[in-house]
């Protein structure tokens, strides 16, 4: 029973990782690609780690799997936000079907008059 559950979790995780790869190839834009890769890969890694912890229910495996899962859930969101912010600030072109862009100036023009040169 545990064996079947673990196998199902492994298959679900691999399917989600494959969907992340397909999304990165097929999506039209930097931002849509980023959200596809981040969400699907985080959930896929979580499923794989849950399958591993079910298959080898020993202390050393479970502790390592939990630490990898916690670290990935914390950092992948931060990494995606930082990449998206850098892409938006550096004027990456949006998809031509984008309906709304709520920033006051155009994305391809980073507003040279703004005195932001510190940091």
């Amino acid at each position: 029973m545990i064996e079947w559950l673990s196998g199902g979790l492994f298959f679900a995780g691999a399917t989600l990782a494959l969907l992340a790869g397909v999304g990165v190839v097929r999506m039209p834009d930097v931002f849509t690609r980023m959200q596809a890769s981040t969400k699907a890969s985080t959930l896929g890694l979580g499923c794989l780690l849950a399958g591993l912890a079910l298959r080898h229910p020993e202390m050393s495996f479970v502790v390592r799997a939990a630490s990898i899962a916690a670290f990935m859930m914390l950092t992948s969101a931060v990494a995606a936000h930082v990449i998206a912010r850098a892409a938006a600030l550096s004027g990456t072109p949006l998809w031509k079907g984008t309906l709304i862009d709520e920033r006051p100036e155009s994305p391809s023009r980073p507003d040279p008059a703004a005195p932001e040169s510190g940091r």
Partner: protein
Amino acid sequence: MSNFVLPLTMTMLALAALLTFTRLVRGPTLPDRVIAIDLIGVLIVCLLVALAAATAEQAFLDVGIVIALISFVGTVAYARYLEREGS
């Protein structure tokens, strides 16, 4: 059940890494390539988890922790470089 699920998992992960590598080669802008490198790091960690499950070896999980950490630091450094370059 258990003797074909893990090879199937590894094959699917390798296929995903191949697709992501296509985007890394072809990506029109630099943020595309940074996203592809980040996803390849996550897929390597996934592959190491599957390998640890197949061989019951804990050392692969330690390697996975280190690769996840280095991939995060590299992604943040690339993003900071992009931000400074664009503005």
